[in-house]
């Protein structure tokens, strides 16, 4: 109880579920839906007001920067993306009150200290394959402009570099270079989601790339680009000429 901040009932449940083994109990506790944890809504309200924009009922970029500062986290840190995901935020660089409060509640956070404590956990979520997929898919809608169907190229490249630094994809730099050299247009949702499949299915030597595999056209072009530039056997090979 002291470590997790859980209530007695939840703690007992977790211990029971893991046959009274302490470490197992931690696993059980943390994998439970977080809504079971109690948060103080008054504290949350205060927290929200601390960061909200003076003119709008939203936390805007400014507020977010201050929040990050207080958390001692870089605003560009990918953990902020995970936070946004938990909040089901509609667009980057802003949180509505509902998003902010609802998200933190689900994480069991009602103070900065608790927030800081949860950060390692949120980082670890990126390692989970399924969650990473959800976060990745979420990012598309989150990063694009409101009202647009596609994601601007620069933003997409930024996102990809952020995401795939975390879950390493050897070809991410080649991909971004390719896009800048050859594509110069916005990225569609289909391309975005199919790219993740591509990183998961096709190895970096392109050995198992199937040309008939219904990959989006852009990805086919990327493969051609790689072949042209001699990226073959090991994926880490020669640098691509400017």
């Amino acid at each position, binding site marked *: 109880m002291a470590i997790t901040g859980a209530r007695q009932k939840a703690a007992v449940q977790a211990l029971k579920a893991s046959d009274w083994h302490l470490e197992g109990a931690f696993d059980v506790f943390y994998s439970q839906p977080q809504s079971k944890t109690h948060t103080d809504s008054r504290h949350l309200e205060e927290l929200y007001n601390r960061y909200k924009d003076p003119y709008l009922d939203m936390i805007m970029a400014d507020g977010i920067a201050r929040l990050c500062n207080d958390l001692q986290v870089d605003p560009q840190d990918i953990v902020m993306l995970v936070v946004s995901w938990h909040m089901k935020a509609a667009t980057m660089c802003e949180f509505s009150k509902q998003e902010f409060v609802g998200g933190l509640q689900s994480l069991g956070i009602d103070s900065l200290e608790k927030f800081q404590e949860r950060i390692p956990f949120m980082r670890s979520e990126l390692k989970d394959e399924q969650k990473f997929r959800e976060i990745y898919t979420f990012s598309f809608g989150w990063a694009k402009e409101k009202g647009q169907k596609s994601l601007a190229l620069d933003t997409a490249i930024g996102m990809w570099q952020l995401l795939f630094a975390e879950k390493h994809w050897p070809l991410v730099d080649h991909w971004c270079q390719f896009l800048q050299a050859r594509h110069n247009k916005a990225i569609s949702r289909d391309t975005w989601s199919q790219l993740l*499949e591509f990183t998961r299915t096709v190895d970096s030597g392109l050995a198992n790339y199937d040309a008939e595999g219904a990959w989006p*056209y852009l990805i086919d072009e990327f493969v051609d680009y790689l072949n042209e530039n001699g990226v073959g056997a090991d994926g880490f090979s020669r640098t691509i000429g400017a």
Partner: protein
Amino acid sequence: MTSHLKEISKSIEAAQGESFLEELNRKWNDHNKALQMIRDILMYMDRTYIPSNHKTPVHELGLNLWRDNIIHSSKIQSRLLNTLLELVHRERTGEVIDRGLMRNIIKMLMDLGSAVYQEDFEKHFLEVSAEFYKVESQKFIECCDCGEYLKKAEKRLNEEIERVTHYLDAKSEIKITSVVEKEMIANHMPRLVHMENSGLVNMLLDDKYEDLGRMYNLFRRVPNGLLTIREVMTSHLRETGKQLVTDPERLKDPVEFVQRLLDEKDKYDSIINKAFSNDKTFQNALTNSFEYFINLNARSPEFISLFVDDKLRKGLKGVSEEDVEIILDKVMMLFRYLQEKDVFEKYYKQHLAKRLLSGKTVSDDAERSLIVKLKTECGYQFTSKLEGMFTDMKTSQDTMQGFYASHPELGEGPTLVVQVLTTGSWPTQPSSTCNLPSEMSALCEKFRSYYLGTHTGRRLSWQTNMGNADMKATFGKGQKHELNVSTYQMCVLMLFNNAERLNYKEIEQATEIPAPELKRCLQSMACVKGKNVLRKEPMSKDIGEEDAFFVNDKFSSKFYKVKIGTVVAQKESEPEKQETRQRVEEDRKPQIEAALVRIMKSRRVLDHNNLISEVTKQLQQRFLPNPTEIKKRIESLIERDFLERDNVDRKLYRYLA
């Protein structure tokens, strides 16, 4: 009897040389007669005792005894065989032999039972024949050319068939012919077909119908014979065709190009008809080959359209109706081979528009007949716009009548003929500026108000780049001519009614015709021999901004009517070709999308590869879609929420209602 027969055997053995067979024959006849008599005498025993005691009947017994004691006697058996084979050999080398005797002896063997015939004669006969023909075929092939060899082979084959009818068992025919076929034909097929200077390819080139027919008839008897011929013919045809369509010399004249294709087709149709007895597999091979090489040249659709254009403008002048049909049918055949039928459609429309507007078609019936053929081949959609063009022409005539009927005062002035074109049906042209001379513009306005009076809600825009004019001109020395010019040319010429000299800039300003067209127009009137109604200073070929123009008072022509207009359909220049190709590609995109939506709507769920092949199948009547383009269209449809990918299997697409 046995001992008696042994005696006989001795006497036969003793027979020398020639008389061996005769002796045998004679004794055999005697034996038969005797046997018959014995059988008659012992008939009662034959019928009662023998069956119930399972003994051999008399006649049969007699035959068996003959067989065992005479035919199989050690001294006679081999001698008999060798003699027979010797005689056959002699006959094959051209000697005349006693066929009657042969027949009798062979019949004797047959009577003794088919086992005897086969074992004691036929088997060896076939072996020896094989050997004989092996040697002979080798000899022939060294010294004969293909045609001669085939003649010899045919002769031998016929000889053997004849031999069988004369003195062998009918069942032997198929066996001996197989031997000949194998030795003379099958074993040498590749060498014959590829023989230099006389092989199949040469026969095809020289239309040697008789030789080809003979080859066909002989080769069809052996396994893969026809296949061999077909393969060689196909690869030769493809090679020839490929050279035809990629030869830069040929490409200079589209009409020639197409004519050569038609000639080639005629040639092979003839060959297949006369020599290959209209064999369907050969016809198919012909079709496949044509389909292959005609599409190697991306300009084939354009050229075929130009060919048709040429025919319909002048080529078919004075040709009878039936012959017209024949030519059009042949053109349709080439059309069927095209992969990119939509490209043809685009060019055909352009060329048809020019023909209709300049009134240059030689036969309305021929035009319509071709449209009907295209409709039958490709469906209503293909030709509906073309038909719309014809309708517009007809309607315009009626409109003109109505116009002049309601404006009788215009009878005196210049005659205006307007064709009102429905925008969707005619090839799209960007309309450009052009200031008409005042006489004409007033008239045009009158027409516009007349037309819009009866057709409210429509919009008319003058297509000055597509019109023409007939003008009466009087030159410096009084020579009068009637000039047929394009509308642009007319505008330029009319300026000279009010000015002696005009420079380029002034002309440009007054007419507002776009520069490239204006330059072309001036060039055609000032720089072309026989059509130089204008004089230019300086006399260079190109039009410079500072050039000055005058009426050429010294203009002369043999003809009263001089045609200077430039509305003839021509082979497109490189940039024009690119433009047309681009437009065709653009037009294909919605067609691919429509096919995709159609297919997905009915199938609901379909995987990637099947979707691509379905779309290709649906569209192949018009063109062969590029799989990459199809993919792009699929992605576009996903983007627009017509389709989605399945959650589990990313290669599966689902239709979103």
